[in-house]
């Protein structure tokens, strides 16, 4: 004959267990600080990359500003001192006399036909 198993009694500390679990479940979550994400990013190495990028950017901007504000470059050309080669025009030696036969030669006359050709041709 089957006998029905007796219902086990409620443990003595049942209420306390319930309260304990309720208190545990209601414990407030630890607040996440504002800089939590930034801390993670910094520690993953991206923070260093950001610093390096910032430095490079600052250097680039500084270089640009410096170039923009630098004085214009003027090319200095050496010019020889001409005072040493001063010539006294009153004491120039006479120029040598040379004949120019082409000047004395009589010009060859050309007829109009030679100059302009014949009409009709």
């Amino acid at each position: 004959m089957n006998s029905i198993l007796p219902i086990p009694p409620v443990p003595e500390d049942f209420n306390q267990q319930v309260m304990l679990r309720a208190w545990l479940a209601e414990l407030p979550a630890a607040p996440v600080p504002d800089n939590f994400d930034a801390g993670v990013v910094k520690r993953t190495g991206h923070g260093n990359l950001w610093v390096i990028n910032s430095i490079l950017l600052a250097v680039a901007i500084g270089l640009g500003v410096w170039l923009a504000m630098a004085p214009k470059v003027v090319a200095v050309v050496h010019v020889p001192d001409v005072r040493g080669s001063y010539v006294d025009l009153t004491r120039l030696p006479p120029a040598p006399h040379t004949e120019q036969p082409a000047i004395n030669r009589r010009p060859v006359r050309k007829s109009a036909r030679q100059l302009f050709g014949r009409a009709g041709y």
Partner: protein
Amino acid sequence: MESMTVKAPSISDEQLLQSFLQGNEKSFQDLMHRYREPILSFVYRFVGDYDDAIDIAQETFIRLYRFGHTFQGEVKFSTWLYTIAANLARTELKRYRRRHGTLLKNVFAKGDDSDSWDIPDEQYRPDERVDSTHISQAVQKALMKVSSSYREMVVMRDIQQLTYEEIAQITGTEMGTVKSRINRGRLQLQEQLRDLYNEVFGIDEEQQ
């Protein structure tokens, strides 16, 4: 109560992780936003020190960032992340014990009634009622007096609301051992909180 359960995300954790592994940094941020509070709370309740908890929680996400590709999908993403956090917290407790010759939990269980974290936050209201704050502090102090192997599982079960199966996976322990440790941890807690029960329910020593 904040638990590990995420409010019906449109994209699953695993999809976010996949997206992150494909180079989308925003997905990493999203994962961090989903889990930073539950992970921080778990570590804080386990380790007992707020600053250490922040450090360990951050380290957990750094591990995710660096070793996310090692996630094989054999367990849920949240279980995997809790495993990292739990391992780091355990390591931290051991390290502190080696350095100082005592348990970290004992340092924070020495009757300091001040609130355990000290950061100004206008929006944060840890407890709306004064007596609730008192209970929270007493429970946290009692937690730190429970053996760490029991405390870890009690925190996962009763605070983080993880399932026994998840706890077994996270801690690499048999299900039976998990249940046994949780029960023992609760009993230790009850013992520690005996005075609080009496205080809250107005039970005199003579009545017990």
